[in-house]
């Protein structure tokens, strides 16, 4: 069917016959119809699960540990180690897959679930087996309505084939996979808020400890992993830890989907070996800045990570957790957002911070009030209504949110401003002294009333 062969969201155009890295996670781009069980299985699908159920659960954990697979949701915690924290005792344990994907600049899970749903379901099943769980929940942001339909159909297909439900593959182990829909809230990507939400409450983050491995969903031991993390798991089990760890860098193994967006010629998802450089992604594959312009700055790992200027040193940095940290930023969710030199940085920062104001859950005061203030002050700055000393005031308010909020959302809110101020202080000051933008379409135009 034509419809199944079309890929949403649309991938970037291929420059060469062969992709830059042989598709693993994004295999649907090479194999049309892989969303269907028979096609998936004909391409090695569920071989990983078949292997897993013949092993002891602990052995599965050890394979994932040995592969070096690290979380793709943001922090990069080793997946196998996370699983090994689950206590062995009796009683229910849960696996929850974080497919809330709402961090601006990130859109990999979206493509993964709409086009390759069995890969994720297989990953969830293997994870359940590894921690002796009989319930996996895939928490999908509600806006992915089609992704949810695709996943639900895939679960039913898998059930009919004996891959979900009772006595899976004759192993005597039972497991259910439930596709759960969220309803629009960035905070539900934060793991403890996700658990609250999955329990049917407001998505307010929880105090930790206890950590989810001890008391998570329904106060039971729970593993939470990102959608892309779990989509890697079938490959690890099918091909083995040694194969997987051949890819990537010393501390960041494997391959991942980098999301490229903003002012580039060819935005889209790119599956690459971990540790590929920014230059390869942004310039060679992405075509560099659009409209023949230059790159002013870029965000390397989703809106919560500090901006970087495209110096040679930065462009040649390998995109792995350690490499990007050495440049003063973070790998985060691997959402690379490029900003061209015709952009007013104050306007861009305002837009970035507005997101955190909109998405603050309201539970704690520093984040709820502080993000409002940040936006008000940045608004004034953008519109040429700021006074001498306002830049310091904004820094100060940001400093009273970060580290003083209940969860990491508050820590992220001042990041765009702080990192941009370091790189483009002159432009921020220009807004105060000239009451207008230094660059961009409004440059030189009087924005506020003359005093």
């Amino acid at each position: 069917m034509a419809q199944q062969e079309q890929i949403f969201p649309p991938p970037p155009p291929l420059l060469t016959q062969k992709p830059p890295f042989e598709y693993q996670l994004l295999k649907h781009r090479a194999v049309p119809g892989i969303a269907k069980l028979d096609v998936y299985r004909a391409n090695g699908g569920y071989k990983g699960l078949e292997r897993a159920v013949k092993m002891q659960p602990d052995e599965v954990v050890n394979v994932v540990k040995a592969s070096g697979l690290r979380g793709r949701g943001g922090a990069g915690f080793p997946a196998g180690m996370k699983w090994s924290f689950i206590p062995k005792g009796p009683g229910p344990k849960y696996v929850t897959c974080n497919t809330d994907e709402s961090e601006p600049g990130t859109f990999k899970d979206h493509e993964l679930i709409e086009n390759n749903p069995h890969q994720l379901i297989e990953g969830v099943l293997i994870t359940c087996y590894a921690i002796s769980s009989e319930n996996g929940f895939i928490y999908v942001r509600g806006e992915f309505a089609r992704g949810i339909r695709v996943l639900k159909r895939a679960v039913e297909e898998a059930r009919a084939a004996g891959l979900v439900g009772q006595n899976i593959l004759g192993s005597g182990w039972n497991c259910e996979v439930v596709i759960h829909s969220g309803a629009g809230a960035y905070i539900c990507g934060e793991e403890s808020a996700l658990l609250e939400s999955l329990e049917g409450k407001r998505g307010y983050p929880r105090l930790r400890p206890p950590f989810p491995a001890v008391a998570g969903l329904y106060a039971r031991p729970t593993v939470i992993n990102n959608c892309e993390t779990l989509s890697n798991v079938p490959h690890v089990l099918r091909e083995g830890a040694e194969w997987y760890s051949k890819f990537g860098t010393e501390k960041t193994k494997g391959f991942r989907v980098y999301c490229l967006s903003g002012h580039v010629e060819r935005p889209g998802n790119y599956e690459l070996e971990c540790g590929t450089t920014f230059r390869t992604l942004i310039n060679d594959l992405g075509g560099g800045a659009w409209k023949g312009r230059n790159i002013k700055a870029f965000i390397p790992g989703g809106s919560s990570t500090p901006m970087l200027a495209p110096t040679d040193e930065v462009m040649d940095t390998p995109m792995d957790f350690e490499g990007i940290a050495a440049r003063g930023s973070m790998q985060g969710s691997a959402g690379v957002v490029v900003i061209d030199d015709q952009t007013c940085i104050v306007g861009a920062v305002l837009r970035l911070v507005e997101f955190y104001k909109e998405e603050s859950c309201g539970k704690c005061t520093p984040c709820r009030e502080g993000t409002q203030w940040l936006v008000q002050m940045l608004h004034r700055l953008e519109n040429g209504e700021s006074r001498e000393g306002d830049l310091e005031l904004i820094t100060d308010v940001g400093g009273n949110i970060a580290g003083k909020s209940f969860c990491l959302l508050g820590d992220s809110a001042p990041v765009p401003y702080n990192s941009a101020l370091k790189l483009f202080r002159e432009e921020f000051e220009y807004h105060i002294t000239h009451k207008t933008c230094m660059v961009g379409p409004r440059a030189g135009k009087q924005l506020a009333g003359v005093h």
Partner: protein
Amino acid sequence: MIDNYSDNLESRVGEFTLSEGSRREIEALKKQYPSARSAILPALHVVQAQFGFIPAEPMGELAEILGILRGDVEQVVTFYRMYNQRPVGKFHVKICDSISCYLRGSDELLEHGQNRLGTKLNETTPDGQITLSKIECLAACGAAPCLQVNDEYVYNVQPEQLDEILDSLKSADKNPYFIP
């Protein structure tokens, strides 16, 4: 209690009871979870699919089915962005305005759409067909600017295409952007 749908409540009593189909769907959802309360979010999507928003009456019905308090339902409805607490147009056009879409022209798109429809953001056209809103990142930043018509995506939208989209929705009965 939230009275979100009508100035003349009394004349509309009974208009907002859950259909048999919705009830069945909610009962089925409830069975998926170790705790019935977990079904609230998906169940509210069922309610919204029936009415186009979340009226006050079925919140009580829903609470009863799930064996929880009405307040438990209300606190969820008021927290999550996707639940419309007031009626919206038959087609709710939501334009993403987060960073990647902003960098590629979402503000212009929002401006353009308001002019085309002659309504402001979050207002509904007089015929009840279209409401235009902005929304935070839709996780389709590589196909920016993008939007949703109800819960279905449209990618890489330029102003001329927005005209086409809005025009097609004026007379549409079903969502033309639905892909199974």
